[in-house]
């Protein structure tokens, strides 16, 4: 008898746990009743009726992260309302992570659900998505931050998208360069990848454009998000003299560390003013809805989607949010607007001029295999980031930036 009771108790515990885990997944459960709206017959080239289209999204994290996934989900929901679709036409898979088996399963579940277009939000999802894309030529696949659609043997139904976030980070750098008193910036960086290096270099160059004395310290956390470590890294950067902390990591703990130590902060993905009212100056952010709206509309209309898509400040795909007028340096707004104008209307490049590494050699951009694909040789050099492929390429560590660990 007691054994049975024990089993029942364990079962209850498990049920409660499942209920708890599914808390942010409710929209998903409601989709089961939908008829399978004519998958297979409708190829993308023929278009899909607006009422029938189903959009699947593989999210790397949970909706509750208040960061990357929160922002990407916001993009999808904005897309739904932009196009006048029903909410249950958007089928999210949250917290899929990066484990290959889970990613493949999530993509295949969306295929089974009859999705006409499937988005994946993380770079790490690419290798699984390209496989499924080969098996399902009638479904459109869109992979954020990746670059596999750029490779020679990619199937035509695989697409990459990203935003020129480096432009927004450059603008954020201006606020940092004007604000700093110690002339040292600190950067909590995710991985030593081009996506991250491109971002923090743009941020640094923005600061340098208004403050020639500024330097920057960088520490990697070697993951996209690790709340306690992000906070410890931010604190360490402050000890090293940084008084403006910027981040390419998922949680708000760097903002909290900045707040605690009376430093200033530049966020990512979300407006962090509520968490750190005296520290958070502004956040560069991606508006994913611009691409998602474009891509889904293309599937509805049966028009072609380019294999690579990357827009920036001009379309609003990258933007800055939450400018905290109370704490930014005087003139920040005007300086940012001037740079924004230069980028949008005068086609100003972010990575330009005779950039050098810390030893004084020409800065070089390399590909995955270490081959030099671009070298900054003189004052007229410029590298048009994210113009030939949407995923960032700039991976040189330039003088003034010190990688601590």
């Amino acid at each position: 008898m007691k054994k049975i009771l024990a089993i029942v108790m364990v079962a209850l515990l498990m049920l409660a746990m499942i209920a708890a885990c599914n808390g942010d997944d409710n929209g998903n459960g409601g989709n089961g009743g939908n008829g399978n709206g004519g998958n297979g017959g409708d190829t993308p080239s023929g278009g899909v009726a607006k009422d029938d289209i189903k959009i699947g999204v593989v999210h790397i994290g949970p909706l509750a992260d208040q960061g990357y996934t929160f922002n990407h989900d916001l993009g999808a929901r904005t897309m739904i309302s932009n196009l006048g679709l029903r909410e249950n036409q958007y089928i999210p898979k949250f917290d899929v992570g990066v484990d290959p088996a889970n990613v493949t399963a999530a993509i295949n579940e969306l295929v089974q659900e009859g999705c006409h277009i499937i988005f994946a939000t993380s770079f790490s999802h690419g290798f699984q998505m390209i496989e499924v894309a080969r098996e399902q030529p009638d479904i459109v696949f869109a992979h954020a931050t990746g670059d596999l659609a750029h490779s020679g043997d990619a199937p035509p139904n695989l697409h990459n998208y990203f935003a020129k976030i480096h432009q927004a980070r450059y603008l954020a750098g201006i606020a940092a360069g004007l604000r700093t008193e110690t002339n040292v910036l600190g950067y909590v960086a995710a991985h030593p990848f081009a996506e991250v290096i491109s971002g923090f270099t743009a941020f640094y160059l923005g600061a340098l454009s208004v403050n020639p004395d500024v330097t920057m310290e960088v520490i990697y956390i070697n993951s996209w998000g690790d709340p306690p470590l992000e906070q410890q890294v931010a604190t360490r950067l402050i000890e090293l003299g940084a008084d403006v902390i910027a981040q390419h990591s998922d949680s708000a703990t760097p903002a909290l560390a900045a707040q605690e130590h009376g430093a200033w902060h530049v966020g990512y993905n979300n407006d962090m003013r509520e968490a750190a009212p005296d520290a958070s100056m502004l956040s560069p952010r991606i508006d994913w809805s611009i691409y998602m709206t474009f891509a889904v509309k293309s599937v509805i209309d049966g028009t072609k989607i380019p294999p690579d898509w990357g827009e920036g400040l001009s379309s609003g795909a990258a933007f800055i949010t939450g400018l905290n007028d109370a704490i930014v340096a005087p003139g920040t707004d005007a300086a940012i607007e001037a740079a924004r104008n230069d980028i949008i209307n005068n086609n100003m490049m972010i990575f330009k001029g005779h950039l050098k590494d810390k030893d004084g050699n020409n800065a070089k951009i390399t590909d995955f295999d270490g081959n030099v694909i671009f070298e900054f040789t003189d004052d007229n050099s410029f590298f048009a980031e994210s113009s030939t492929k949407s995923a960032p390429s700039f991976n040189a560590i330039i003088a003034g930036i010190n990688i601590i660990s």
Partner: protein
Amino acid sequence: MDSGDLLLESRKQRVEIMDIDILTNFFFMAVIAATPLLFGTLGEILTQKSGSINLGVEGMMFMGASIGLSASYFYEFYAGDGTIGYVALGLAVIFGFLAGALGGFIYSVLTVTFRANQNVTGLALTIFGIGVGNLVGDLLSTHAQGFTSSTEATRRVVANVGIPILRDIPILGRMLFSYNIMVYFVIVVAILLMWFFNKTRVGLNLRAVGENPATADAVGINVTRYKYIAASIGGGICGLGGMVISMVDNSGTWVFNCVAGRGWIAVALVIFAAWKPSRAIFGAVLFGGLSVLRLYFPIEGVPAQVYDIVPYAATILALVLTSIRRSKENAQPKACGTNYFREER
């Protein structure tokens, strides 16, 4: 409320810590990182002394983190400008403790009364607690329409203000007397547990239950009651560790997945500390230090992953060393892992 003062103080502090030497700053950060670990470790030591291995530390910390934060959050929400920082922190302590204790109580019901496997129950409790913690935290964020955040009055109470006068002693002041109130609280808990295990009758009884429940039963100790109370209070102490993360480290902001595996490190620390609260203090500071070692002493060419391995390698080493020495003093309570059936005597 004299808003703005705290900001000025923290700006001043920021300028000061830039001039402090690297070792002192390293030690300071190690102690801050050690505090939630030490709560988790002490709670688990108390639980294991009663002969129960509760692997659900991570889950109980999550429950304490979000439910402790909820109490403070809703108090502040209704008190508004009249918020008293100590009341907010006090409520977080009470509810963080109760949330963890609830986890420990569920564990006791399953393992003591229904005699479910201790390891499986602990693992289930971990998953359950992570789910509950993140769900409650998410509901708080939804209620706050974004990030939750403590008021100035509460932030002031949980700031690293330290002990007046003593904190101004050069170097020692920074290393010993400049922490937030919870750091001193956890030291007090450790000392109380030390005294309880070694100097009190009830503590002796508890150790007897953990070593040999049948004998303890024979001399008239209520084994079931001891196990229930130890696991529940132990769980409560673990819950306080989570509360420290959400209320103190994250100043009242719910950060998804904020406990981030530190409950598991606490379980490893129990072994490292050889079930002794005094050693747990030392071990927690050591593990806290190891977790931030790379930020202070980076070695060129050594990947970060090597640094991440060190705490676990240290635990394995400690296990090997203690088992080689076969000291009865430093061993796990004998009855750990097996449930007590009075009928099987």
